[in-house]
């Protein structure tokens, strides 16, 4: 009798089985990176696009960071990649190196007005082997947040000017549960700590590792010592996003080296955060790693021209301003960014300060080498750095192993 009931239930379920996707007429699909909250405005995109190309239906898909990569990989393997994709950091490099992305050069050449919209410093970030593959969607790069109260308690006033000052400031603020310094560690966000000591990751021709130098050894030894003494909170090297931001929001960490979107998370869950308690500054030497979001068109797209129209619409001044003011980010669209800065100066001075620091030192952008195997180099390098700072290997041993592994990836 149990069997009969189960069978009855299942046949009902089978009957109501949704049929496979019916062959829709012309269609383009847009894949965005974890902005479900922006749904209303995205409906605005689609409505505006209806006027330009009524024959095209637009499918919007949103995936979280860790799920977007797998989703795009499997869809590409099946030959049905989404037409327009929003990616973060250097994920696009592998796709470009493997020829999965449409070269936007010809489109930009044809429409100078569109090419002129964007800040050249940021456009450079998305070029590979001389071709422009992406347009900026919203731009972020790393900077230094600091807890002014903890600074006062430790008798400090202005942010550190040199690498050693970062560590000495951090040491002064470390006691009990409190620690002095935290950095994000994914997508090369920690690299400015090495760049300010004159360390180069690879040779200019991107063929060989160039970081195994006395300067790098000195930096790594100091970082390891500071982590061991507790001045650098261990979460800096093991956490990803929620952990470092959570710790800084809890008010127990002196300085946080991360990219700008963290500000809105920290303010959201950190009751202590306001204009006089949260300091914002550039890292010593003004170095910063971009972790911007950009948009590309898949080469396997069946409607490249329609996709380009949609891309132009998203990055237009009107929608760029809407995006910037709604999700509190700058967009790389020069005109729009001016308006967004004005908006924040009027309504949210602290956010304006964050965005201002972010727009400074655009010539000191680092940590974004056009490496065809960026994620493998990143893994090979960071795994060893992590071993060193957590005291599981000596800095020398870690750097030698890292050099061996990175060279193996680069020579492939």
């Amino acid at each position: 009798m149990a069997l009969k009931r189960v069978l009855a239930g299942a046949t009902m379920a089978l009957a109501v089985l949704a049929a496979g996707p019916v062959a829709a007429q012309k269609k383009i699909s847009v894949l965005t990176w974890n902005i479900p909250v922006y749904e209303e405005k995205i409906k605005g995109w689609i409505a505006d696009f209806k006027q330009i190309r009524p024959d095209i239906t637009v499918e919007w898909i949103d995936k979280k960071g860790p799920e977007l990569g797998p989703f795009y990989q499997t869809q590409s393997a099946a030959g049905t990649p989404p037409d327009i994709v929003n990616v973060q950091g250097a994920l696009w490099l592998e796709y470009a190196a493997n020829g999965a992305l449409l070269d936007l050069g010809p489109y930009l050449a044809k429409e100078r007005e569109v090419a002129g919209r964007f800040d050249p410093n940021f456009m450079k970030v998305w070029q590979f082997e001389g071709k422009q593959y992406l347009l900026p969607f919203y731009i972020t790069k790393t900077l230094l947040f600091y807890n002014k109260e903890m600074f006062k308690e430790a008798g400090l006033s202005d942010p550190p000017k040199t690498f050693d000052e970062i560590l000495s400031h951090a040491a002064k603020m470390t006691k009990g549960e409190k620690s002095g310094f935290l950095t994000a560690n994914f997508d090369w966000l920690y690299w400015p700590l090495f760049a300010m000591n004159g360390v180069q990751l690879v040779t200019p021709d991107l063929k060989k590792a160039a970081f195994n130098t006395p300067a790098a050894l000195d930096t790594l030894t100091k970082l390891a010592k500071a982590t061991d003494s507790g001045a650098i909170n261990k979460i800096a090297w093991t956490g990803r996003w929620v952990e470092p931001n959570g710790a800084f929001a809890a008010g127990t960490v002196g300085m946080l080296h991360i990219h700008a979107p963290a500000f809105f998370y920290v303010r959201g869950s950190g009751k202590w955060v306001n204009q006089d308690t949260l300091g914002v500054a550039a890292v010593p030497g003004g170095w910063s790693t971009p972790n911007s979001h950009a948009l590309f068109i898949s080469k396997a797209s069946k409607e490249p021209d329609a996709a380009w129209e949609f891309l132009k619409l998203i990055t237009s001044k009107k929608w760029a301003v809407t995006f910037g003011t709604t999700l509190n980010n700058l967009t790389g669209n020069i005109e729009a960014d001016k308006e967004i800065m004005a908006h924040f100066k009027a309504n949210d001075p602290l956010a304006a300060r964050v965005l201002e620091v972010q727009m400074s030192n655009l010539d000191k952008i680092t940590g974004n080498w056009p490496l065809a195997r960026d994620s493998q180099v990143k893994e090979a390098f960071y795994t060893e750095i992590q071993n060193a700072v957590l005291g599981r290997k000596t800095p020398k041993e870690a750097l030698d192993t890292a050099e061996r592994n990175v060279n193996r990836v680069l020579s492939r």
Partner: protein
Amino acid sequence: MRRWINRYSITFGLIGLAVLGWNLYVAAHRDGLLTGRVAAADGSAIAGATVKVRERTMVSSEPRAEAKTDAQGRFRVEGLDYHHLLVEVEAQGFKPLPRQSVRLWFRGQNRALEAPLTMERAG
């Protein structure tokens, strides 16, 4: 007949009834109506105050409606198809009222705010 009365049919029957009853209640009370009164600390009505209603979504909030209070300080807003509202009040000579959160059981539930929104006089 007895064979069909067992734990399964009773449980799922009750669930079905509860759902039906709930939907009936919802259908009867869903004009998105919000009414209330704005008063000063001493209880006297504040006329002409602007009441702004925002919808609180998972991550942010969007302005949705506005209304003015009448002579008796009462306001009435309709067509609010949301389940979490934020109410702000501004009036001449009074400190602006910080956002009050109004939680509803379903979208568009009619709600009359019992306690008057009391505002302090500007300094």
